[in-house]
């Protein structure tokens, strides 16, 4: 029974005379196959003698040959030294103490070198050096493929001899004509460089030295100079403070050069029921605000008023201040707590205003604060706004004969860069000492290729009397010469900079101590203060005093005008800083601790303002984050930036980070974000702005989309100091229970365990403790882990697909109520499906001024690991020492383990990141590969990887002890993260050593395991966060 039914796909087919139907019947492919495109030029094709058969023969032969050749091992060559340096043993690392001083970051560090290559930066504990994320990542800058490889003149390569001859003769001509020679430099804080510049000035006469900090601390410097007669920044030791009140100072970030977090963390750990109290008034949600016990969001103008009020309450000098009632109460409470704390209290401010800074000095003096130390001022910021502004004006007017720049990039960082470029063209000689052909270097006549700090000599006076030395850890990779060497050449001095420093130190600093010892330690604390050369145009004390009003508090109040539109606070991100390391893929991929967004900067706005302006954040179906663009305008200068709605942002304020939007000396992948410097007018980080929504959709690479804990208090356990002190552990840190025969049994009990316990009491048993109180979320551990373990960079689009490779992440959680406890309560009170749907939905949104918690999460090395049981090829297994091993060569990439991991710490290699042109980061060029750690394998495509608890480091420690035939002391075992954590939040060690720190922490009342109810028995533990919420 056949049917005559006619089937048709398109109405057109019913039309019998349709030409289209006919064509489609004849041609399978409607469009002609573009054979010409791949067969190329027809003439050449015909002229070739290769016939089709020959071609097939070749194909067959090459395929066979290739597959045969694959069975042969490659011949590897080994080339030993001709003369092996005595200090190098292949396979054994050497450590050198040195100092980074790039004008923004100053820190004493230890550099690990292998076979002469620096591969990692570590803390110099001898010098209490604390390397932040950027300093940890700075080693990669040495192997940057975009470095300038030799001196250049107008884009052409020249030799140093030519460079010297030409520049010297030009300098002589300019000096003879008595025109001004300007040295525009970063803050060197270097006694030897100061001396050298003085000699240079003497030789050439009309020399002006202008120190320029891209991100200015001028106001603080001037206030300090006016009060204490010396240009510097007051030093603070937060380990001596029990009550800290900060008004707009991100002192756990980059405030006044940073480096205060270690001292701060010391008192954050509750000891005998006591811990410090930290109150923060600020507009952007900063790292510091996130760590505060109490955070009061205030617009910049309100901050000034609050500070003035605080001043009047403490010093008793009455100033009329009008503040909203709640703020007034908060300030009053802060003041009373400070007065109670007395000399153990301290006030700091980040307001870039001479009066505000002076007010703070007065408060601290009134309190007789022990944490406040004006006697050893910090020297690492010396920039002078007025001098820089004057210079740009003079250059534009054609008054400058020559300009020599070192360590600065004004064309990128100056708000009036166009004026600067114009002025630059009028100079007779312009030289830039630069590692990159950046925005400034591409505008000057001569680029003097500068070495990386790991290839240079130098000295730094970090604080008054605290000297540090910089020594090269590798021979210069390229034909580079540092600024100081060239200054020596220009002044006709034949000695090397090393000899110069040695001589200068011998004469003025060391006072008979050994230079080699100082070089070995990296630091020398002397009693003799050297006179650093004051930049020629810097203010005198008198001038500085003039700038400070006689009644600073009153002046502060009158300067606090509410913004017309919104108040923009420009800030620096933990990862990017002032932007000089913008071409560093580690830092670009480093997620911001607060927003958890990498590869971008953005305008942070409060939820209320965003709604008013019509700005939105969109969560896309694949789990990524998108946003609108906003146009931000300051005095006619506008930039268009994406937006992130930031919980905790003060209403009426917005924030934007520096350091992004570089266009030169930066790989195209790294040219992300928007340059915020054009908005940095008059070097003021607070600006009146108008913001308007301009639509569009921006794609972010955000690594954490669950903003809040949604009441899952077993992830981040938190309590208050009061409860901690008064209640039992079971109340605030209860061990979860499960039901066994209808009886509640703690999960730690062996009866409810699925697995048998393995005896781990023999040998080492490694544990890592993470104290949520001491962790500030700074992220140094993330970069340290990156550099120790050869973790690949995957790029923005891959991060968006949740394919970031970080072995260690720092989760950041907000509370949806005002506190995390509020969250718990709300969750407990949910009843019924309807309620749970709506209330969980609400809980996804962070509150207006949420509390924040940071939680570093890496592989928890579970003793009963869910990942191990599901691996079909036994590629992941457990060692007796507690580490969860991962045999990459055994892994076939089923990813079952990642799916079964409750902590989501396993990372899959979707691509061969070290051999794929799509990932043009450091692992894809020979130069960038030099940073790889030879003790850790570089993983291939298709395998799972994860934190190994730095097994290469624990094994090395064990081997060293075996070789020496000795027992291992507590503190010898370290992971990359625990070694990088200067705050003492991460403690690593052997719990079978009963006297070890980590064994004691395991017994601590605050100890808990992540998701303990799952019963995985992790070897990583956390210490419950305790917040000091006690008011007055």
């Amino acid at each position, binding site marked *: 029974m056949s049917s005559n039914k006619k089937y048709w796909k398109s109405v057109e087919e019913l039309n019998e005379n349709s030409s289209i139907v006919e064509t489609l019947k004849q041609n399978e492919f409607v469009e002609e196959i573009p054979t010409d495109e791949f067969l190329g030029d027809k003439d050449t094709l015909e002229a070739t003698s290769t016939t089709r058969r020959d071609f097939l023969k070749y194909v067959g032969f090459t395929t066979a040959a290739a597959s045969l050749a694959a*069975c042969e*091992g490659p*011949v*590897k*060559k*080994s*080339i*030993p*030294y*001709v*003369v*092996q340096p*005595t200090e190098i*043993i*292949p*396979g*054994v690392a050497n450590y050198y103490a040195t100092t980074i001083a790039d004008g923004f970051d100053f820190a004493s560090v230890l550099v690990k070198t292998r076979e002469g290559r620096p591969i990692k930066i570590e803390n110099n504990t001898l010098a209490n050096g604390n390397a932040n994320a950027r300093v940890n990542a700075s080693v990669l800058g040495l192997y940057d493929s975009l470095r300038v490889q030799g001196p250049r003149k107008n884009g052409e390569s020249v030799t140093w001899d030519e460079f010297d001859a030409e520049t010297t003769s030009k300098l002589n001509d300019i000096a003879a004509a008595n025109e001004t020679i300007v040295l525009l430099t970063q803050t060197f804080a270097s006694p030897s460089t100061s001396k050298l510049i003085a000699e240079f000035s003497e030789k050439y006469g009309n020399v002006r030295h202008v120190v320029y900090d891209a991100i200015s601390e001028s106001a603080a410097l001037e206030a300090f100079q006016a009060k204490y007669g010396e240009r510097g920044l007051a030093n603070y030791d937060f380990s001596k403070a029990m009550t800290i009140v900060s008004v707009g100072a991100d002192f756990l970030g980059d405030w006044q050069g940073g480096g205060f977090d270690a001292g701060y963390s010391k008192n954050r750990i509750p000891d005998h029921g006591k811990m410090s109290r930290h109150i923060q008034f600020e507009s952007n949600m900063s790292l510091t605000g996130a760590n505060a016990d109490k955070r009061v969001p205030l617009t910049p103008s309100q901050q000034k008023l609050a500070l003035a009020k605080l001043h009047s309450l403490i010093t008793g000098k009455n100033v009329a201040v009008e503040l909203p009632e709640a703020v007034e109460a908060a300030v009053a409470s802060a003041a009373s707590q400070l007065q109670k704390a007395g000399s153990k209290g301290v006030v700091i401010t980040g307001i870039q205003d001479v009066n505000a800074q002076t007010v703070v000095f007065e408060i601290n003096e009134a309190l007789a604060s022990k944490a406040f130390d004006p006697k050893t001022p910090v020297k690492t910021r010396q920039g002078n706004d007025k001098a820089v502004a004057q210079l740009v004006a003079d250059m534009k007017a054609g008054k400058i004969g020559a300009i020599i720049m070192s360590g600065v990039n004004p064309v990128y960082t100056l708000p009036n860069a166009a004026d600067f470029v114009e002025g630059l063209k009028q100079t007779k000689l312009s030289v830039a000492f630069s590692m990159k052909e950046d925005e400034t270097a591409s505008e000057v006549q001569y680029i003097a290729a500068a070495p990386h700090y790991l290839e240079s000599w130098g000295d730094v006076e970090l604080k008054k009397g605290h000297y540090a030395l910089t020594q090269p850890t590798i021979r210069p990779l390229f034909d580079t010469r540092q600024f100081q060497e060239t200054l020596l050449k220009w002044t006709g001095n034949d000695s090397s900079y090393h000899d110069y420093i040695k001589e200068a130190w011998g004469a003025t600093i060391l006072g008979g101590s050994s230079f080699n010892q100082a070089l070995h330690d990296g630091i020398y604390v002397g009693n003799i203060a050297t006179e650093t050369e004051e930049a020629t145009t810097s203010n005198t004390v008198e001038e500085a005093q003039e700038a400070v009003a006689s009644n600073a508090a009153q002046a502060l109040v009158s300067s606090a005008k509410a913004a017309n539109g919104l108040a923009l606070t420009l800030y620096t991100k933990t990862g990017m800083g002032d932007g000089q390391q913008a071409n560093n893929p580690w830092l670009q991929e480093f997620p911001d601790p607060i927003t958890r967004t990498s590869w971008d900067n953005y305008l942070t706005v409060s939820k209320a303002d965003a709604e008013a302006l019509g700005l939105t954040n969109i969560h896309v179906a694949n789990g990524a984050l998108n946003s609108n663009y906003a146009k931000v305008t300051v005095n006619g200068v506008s930039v268009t930036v994406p937006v992130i709605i930031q919980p905790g942002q003060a209403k009426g304020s917005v924030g934007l980070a520096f350091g992004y939007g570089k266009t030169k000396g930066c790989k195209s992948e790294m040219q992300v974000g928007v340059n915020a410097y054009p908005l940095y007018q008059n070097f003021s980080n607070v600006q009146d702005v108008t913001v308007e929504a301009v639509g569009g959709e921006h794609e972010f690479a955000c690594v954490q989309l669950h903003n809040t804990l949604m009441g899952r208090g077993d992830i981040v356990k938190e309590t208050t100091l009061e409860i901690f002190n008064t209640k039992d552990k079971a109340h605030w840190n209860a061990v979860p229970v499960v039901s066994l025969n209808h009886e509640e049994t703690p999960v730690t009990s062996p009866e409810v365990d699925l697995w048998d316990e393995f*005896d781990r*009491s*023999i*040998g080492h048993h490694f544990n890592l403790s993470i104290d949520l109180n001491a962790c500030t979320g700074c992220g140094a551990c993330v970069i340290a882990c990156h550099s120790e373990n050869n973790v690949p960079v995957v790029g923005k689009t891959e991060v968006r697909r949740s394919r970031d490779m970080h072995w260690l992440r720092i989760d950041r959680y907000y509370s949806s109520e005002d506190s995390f406890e509020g969250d718990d309560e709300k969750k407990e009170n949910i009843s019924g499906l309807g309620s749970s749907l709506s209330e969980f939905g609400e809980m996804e949104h962070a509150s207006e001024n949420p509390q924040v918690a940071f939680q570093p999460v890496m592989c928890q090395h579970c003793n009963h690991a869910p990942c191990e049981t599901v691996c079909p090829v036994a*590629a992941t*297994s457990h*060692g*007796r*020492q507690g*580490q969860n*091993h*991962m*045999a*990459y*060569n*055994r892994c076939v990439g089923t990813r079952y383990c990642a799916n079964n991991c409750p902590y989501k710490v396993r990372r899959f290699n979707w691509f061969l990141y070290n051999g794929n042109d799509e990932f043009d980061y450091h692992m894809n060029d020979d130069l960038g590969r030099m940073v790889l750690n030879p*003790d*850790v*394998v*570089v993983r291939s495509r298709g395998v799972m990887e994860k934190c*190994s608890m730095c*097994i*290469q480091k624990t*094994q090395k420690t*064990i*081997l060293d*002890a*075996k*070789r*020496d*035939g*000795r*027992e*291992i002391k507590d503190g010898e075992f370290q992971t990359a993260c625990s070694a990088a954590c200067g705050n003492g939040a991460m403690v690593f060690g052997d719990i079978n050593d009963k006297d070890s720190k980590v064994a004691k922490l395991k017994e601590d009342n605050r100890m808990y395991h992540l998701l303990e109810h799952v019963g995985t028995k992790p070897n990583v533990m956390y210490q419950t966060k305790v917040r000091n919420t006690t008011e007055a």
Partner: protein
Amino acid sequence: MKKSYQSKEVNLTKNMIQVNYRKLSDSLLRFGFIVLLAFATTLSAQEGDPAKGKSLFNTNCAACHNLDKDMTGPKLRHIEQRLADEQGLDKEWIYAWVRNSSALIKSGDAYANDVFNRYNKTAMTAFPQLSDDDLNNILAYTAQEKAAPPTPAPGTETAGQTATTSGGVSNEIILGALAILFVLLALGLYLVNKTLRRFAEAQDIALPEETKRTPLWKAFVQNQFLMLVLAIFFLLTSAYYVYGYLMQVGVDQGYQPVQPIHFSHKIHAGDNGIDCKYCHSSARVSKTSGIPSLNVCMNCHKSIYEYNGETSVEHTKEFYDGEIQKLYAAAGWSDADQKYTGESQPVKWVRIHNLPDFVYFNHSQHVSVAGVECQTCHGPVETMEVLYQHAPLTMGWCVNCHRETNVKVKDNAYYEKIHEELSKKYGVENLTAAQMGGLECGKCHY
């Protein structure tokens, strides 16, 4: 570091056989043993014992003097005779010179000053401890005629060759004779058969007809069971060989590449008994054993400029001397001027032992901690003229050893506690590396 090398060298010199010595160290021996014969005290010269003299010479003089070549100091063969003939100086002069040459120079002795100036004014170390007998022994040794180089005894070589040739000839003859015999036999049988048939035909005897049967092979092919068995057998065999082939991919046991310089471990580690770790010093402290840098070679080869050991047809003295010249070229050493030219050329050795990147192996763990002999993994290196990979270096091979080898815990404070507890747990006297955790994946793969 340098010091220890030097002292090592002195030890080494004792062990070396039949090599010439030379040493350019600044403060060492200067010129000695200048002998004279003017007085016909040939008797006393003959009194010396050349064998004792050789030992004394190697201990005291060889760092700067060679019998047949000017080095730091002049060549010394027949020195007593030559001094007597050319300068008219007697044995007493030699005694004086050896025991304190600078005093002799200061005293204004013409020839002493002449020699001193000729050899870059380097003072010879004084040897006041050498007695007259000692010196006579040394002089006796220098008075010996140069021995013929121990070329591989040509007689034996030829004899061997002849033997092979003759063996070849006789075999062929026997085989040929056998073949002829066989052919003759076959022919004979055929003829017998033919004759018998003819007789039968002539006497009309009917020969029985051969019944046609299925040929064996056909029957075999038609038997399905046998075919199945055969097929299975064939498949299994080929699977066995394919598996065997695939398993040896990447296993380079026996890998023996040609190196840019023919370095003989047999001569160095075998004949001269140099400790492996003298050259591969980082094996004690590092994960790599380290290919010695050229300055380590030159520690000895500054004085060892020629080879005087055993040779063969393939590796003649000239061949070895040429290889030493290659080393000089690479290290930038000018043998004629006895100094470095500064033009060095690193040697690109071909790496023999390659572990994949995903394996972490540490030499010091095995060499220093466990005290494993190098030969355990590298084979009889001291007998290898050309080095090859002795072990398969597969994971199974590593693991086997870890299962069988006991951990060396004696006198190592690190192991004390863990060994006591673990051996109790496992109930054994000595723990194997495996019991100590040496089979855990993460111990070698990270």
